[in-house]
């Protein structure tokens, strides 16, 4: 390589770095450093209300306490239940929506737009909306079910199990269309000849779905599952607006518990331990999924 060529190379590298650096700097400052700081804080006892105590290094004490904490254990169970139920329902609804909007028909653009509206609505608005629909006196649910038999009206959100179900319902309504878009992208990758060939061989609609669509859709379904699981683990807005974790602890999810310990009670060390634990769980889950997605992509590449 001549000297001038090497000079151009290094100038280009410099330019490349000057293009990446500002974005990287901001990401590191407002995302990467905070996670490290959260971990560091989680190794301390810090109480906002008691500044005279300062911050005391306690090693893994907060994590040991977390393992013994019955509220945290309950919040973990509620979160896992929420993740499981909402992702399964969202994938099922998403698959059905995707099959519909994959078809060719007049006005498909409008139908797609209509389906995207729940996804675009602010989560806070969706939460207030469902809270109002299930309101005990003025709600649409009671009006629809009981009309003017006012004495039968049900205070839906006062029952633990029903309240949990309504939070799941609101989440499914809000995000099924996102799952549908990811699945739609997978549907568009399946070549039409496969269906034609199967039809020639006499396969019915159900058989074509079962033996062509579903297997080839596996990577897209796994990807949708990955995104939805990560999001469901982080659920906060819905619970904050609709139930504040109640009634009792029926909708007390980990993120809301973390929020309460950190910002309502001001137990910075312990609250940080809760959020770091959630982060580690999400990380572990996504690594498992990514492995599964990787291997299913490999399977597909095999002739």
């Amino acid at each position: 390589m001549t000297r001038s060529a090497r000079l151009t190379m290094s100038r280009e590298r410099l330019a490349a770095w000057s293009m990446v650096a500002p974005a990287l700097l901001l990401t590191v400052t407002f995302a990467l450093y905070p996670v490290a700081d959260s971990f560091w804080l989680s190794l301390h006892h810090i109480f906002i209300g008691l500044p005279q105590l300062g911050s005391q290094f306690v090693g893994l004490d907060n994590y040991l306490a977390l393992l013994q904490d019955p509220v945290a254990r309950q919040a973990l169970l509620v979160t896992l239940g929420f993740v499981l139920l909402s992702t399964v329902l969202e994938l099922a609804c998403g698959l059905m929506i995707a099959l519909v909007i994959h078809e060719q028909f007049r006005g498909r653009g409008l139908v797609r737009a209509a389906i995207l509206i729940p996804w675009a609505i602010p989560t806070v608005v969706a939460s207030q909306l469902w809270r109002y629909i299930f309101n005990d006196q003025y709600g649409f649910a009671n009006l629809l079910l009981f009309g003017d038999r006012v004495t039968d009206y049900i205070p839906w959100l006062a029952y633990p199990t029903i309240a949990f179900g309504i939070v799941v319902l609101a989440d499914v309504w809000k995000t099924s269309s996102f799952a549908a878009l990811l699945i739609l992208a997978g549907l568009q990758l399946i070549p039409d000849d496969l269906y034609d060939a199967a039809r020639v061989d006499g396969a019915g609609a159900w058989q074509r779905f079962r033996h062509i669509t579903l297997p080839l859709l596996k990577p897209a379904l796994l990807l949708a599952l990955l995104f939805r699981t990560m999001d469901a683990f982080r659920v906060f807005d819905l619970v904050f607006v609709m139930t504040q974790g109640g009634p009792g602890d029926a909708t007390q999810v980990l993120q809301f518990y973390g929020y309460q310990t950190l910002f309502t009670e001001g137990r910075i060390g312990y609250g940080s331990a809760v959020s770091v634990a959630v982060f580690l769980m999400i990380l572990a889950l996504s690594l498992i999924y990514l492995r599964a997605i990787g291997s299913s992509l490999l399977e597909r590449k095999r002739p």
Partner: protein
Amino acid sequence: MKRRMLLGLGIFLSVGLSLLPFLWFVLTSFKSQADIESIPPTWWPSGNLGFYRTALFDHRLFDYAFNSLVVAGSTTILALLLAIPAAYALARLTVPGKRGVLAVLLCVSMFPQMAIAGPIWRLLDSMGGLNHRWGVVLPYVALTLPLAIWILASFFKELPPELEDAARIDGCGPWSTLFRITLPLATPGIFTAAILILIYAWNEFFFALLILTQPEQQTLPVGIALFQGEFTMPWGELAAASVVATLPLIVVVLLCQRWIVSGLSAGAVKG
């Protein structure tokens, strides 16, 4: 024939279930207080704008909308300014430590907000950013950058490289190649990224709740989440505020449905 009927049923169900719940809020926003409080509630509004008036003047709806506009607008502009060069470099140039950069970006998109909330609060406290609109813009930009870079980079990769090669042979450096050659060709990709950033920033609640504690600075989601009446829940005003917060999004979705669909599925296809 059976297939058409099934499809019709599918369209009917998915459109109906998507729109009906919100329609109840739209109807509510045009009711009067008497319509709302009658038991059983009335189906149809008597048709007046009272709730919009009180929401605007007694519940700071105007402030919230203005703040949301400023926050979402600045987030979008800033995030694009940072994401475009970064995505271009990652798609086209040899960036030393590229794998590390990509790993950081991927990692950031998985973070639960709570895991960074405390430190971000402390950081903004020391910078004097609490209760300022720019205090939420900075974390919003950081958190939308991964998605924006992802979309833009996959778009840049699909452009034919010949034009850029020609520009480089003519002596254009990377920056001027980006601005003169690539950017004009990449408007659809930039548009897609802009819409997704805009929707994120318009809807974000959690950081806004933590950072903006004064009503004068709060955005629509915070205002709507903390909506309170003196004695009872002001459902009518709440519905009106929700319609105001959602209307711009409905317009965006109607106009830009194609870009949203392609943008959100870009990650899935190129995986």
